């Protein structure tokens, strides 16, 4: 009698095990490390009661531009009026389009970039930010 009980218990255990493997209806308990990057929750600001309505400073998120000749010229000229994200955001553009953009900044927007420097910037953008060369 006891033998039969053991035998039945074993078979039952086996059936449960088999069912769990063959007829698994869910999975659980997996976690993966995702690095330290989270989005900060900002401290609620406390406003003064005077007539000034202040939003505070706006954050700058500096992107990494492709290393290479002309990067300094971009930093010293283009970044006067706008952050380098204006370059990093653009889709990969043909070299001619970058040349047009730089000339638009000079002629249409009045950026005082000397001809020689402008050529170096055009060369830099046309080298690193075209459909063929853009890394990311």
């Amino acid at each position, binding site marked *: 009698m006891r033998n039969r009980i053991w035998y039945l218990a074993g078979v039952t255990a086996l059936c449960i095990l088999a069912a769990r493997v063959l007829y698994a209806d869910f999975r659980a308990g997996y976690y993966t490390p995702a690095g330290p990057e989270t989005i900060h929750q900002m401290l609620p600001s406390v406003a003064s009661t005077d*007539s000034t309505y202040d939003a505070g400073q*706006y954050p700058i998120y500096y992107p990494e531009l492709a290393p290479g000749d002309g990067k300094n010229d971009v930093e010293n000229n283009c970044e006067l009026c706008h952050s380098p994200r204006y370059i990093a955001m653009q889709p990969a553009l043909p070299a001619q389009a970058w040349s047009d953009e730089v000339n638009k900044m000079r002629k249409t927007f009045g950026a005082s970039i000397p001809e020689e420097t402008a050529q170096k910037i055009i060369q830099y953008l046309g080298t690193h930010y075209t459909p063929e060369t853009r890394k990311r």
Partner: protein
Amino acid sequence: MGDSKLGFTRRRLLKTLGAASVTLAAAQIFGEPNAAGQEPSGLQPAPEFTGPGANPYWTSPGQFATYPQKAPLILLTDRPVQLETPRHYFLSTFTPNDAFFVRWHLQTIPNAVDLKEWRLHVEGNVERPLTLSFPELVARFKSVSVAAVNQCSGNSRSRLQPRVAGGQWGNGAMGNAAWTGVKLREILDAAGVKSGSVQVQFEGLDRGLGPKGFGSNRFLKSLDLTNPVIDECLVAYAMNGEPLPMLNGFPVRLIVPGYFATYYVKSLSWIRVLDTPDDNFWMKAAYRIPDAPRGNTTPEDMKSGKVATVPIARMPVRSFLISPDGSTKIPAGFPLRLRGIAFSGYGGMKKVEVSTDNGANWSEARLGPDEGEYSFRTWSLDWTPKSAGRHPLAVRATDAKGNVQPDEGVWNPGGYLWNKIERQEIVVGDAS
């Protein structure tokens, strides 16, 4: 006797179990794997997508960033600031202020405004120039509210082929708010527009570092005084019942219902009546569209120099599926409610239709509450996918003027006026 038999049975049981385990392991390794038995994949950050193909995502694939008075939004640029609204915020008719997209043109944008000093100046070709303080503006004129969509001219620019330079927005450079303020017409009447005036120009507190007289120095927009939209314009001091966030134009902003957001001048501080047409960069060179059906042209025609252009004005009809957004696998037989929004700069919505077979057949959706002809209009449609598969959904709107969304994209050098029928693939899985 019992013991020995028990021992034998135990051994046999263990052997049996062992053999079974091997068989099961083999079945797991070599057999048809059960999906639920596989290791789940982790979340992957969206890769930076820079083309040259069209951006395949609903929004720009940029990172999230937090700005003052703002929820985390998608960062396009930081100086000047351009932030895009994530998709899920468009489930409701009104877009929350802290999620409302941001787009400035010049780098020197207001951080703070002292209302004791700030004035709205009404000047130029007028009988009585005005300098209105914030309380004067609020008290002197009648308070009016309008629900109006504020959509960047370059919304969805990242869809164009070939790609064009500019803010690489997905679909989130838009928002709808209940704007409360005073009628521009009442202000103009109070100042007394002199005869011979042709346009009214608007200027905010933003400044650029470019030389004087260039678009990189001042951002200026103008409307013809004969344009009927002048009578619909508001100088708004409230957005969804709250003060405007600084990045959305505190303390007051021009509202031009039906028009693209380029005319919604932020931190409006000068209203200038002109006796000659405005020829500043932002009217004469920028924000212009080909004078052609749908503002459509080709790179070749642009190069030839024969394409005449006009200032951008009203927004063409658009509609969006917001939920489901394709990120959730739907069991076959699940009673789905498809939900989204539609709008048009040419007046209210006539109908929204949804196709669950990539445009072969269309069903009319139920329209949500009507908040006015220039507002987002929500829509919904119940649909139960019967079988597993990848279902290409499409949504198209028809506005009150009978304009229907086309199934073709548009191309112009500014990347404006995109209003192609939107599609969303929904993955439906087996459920039995």
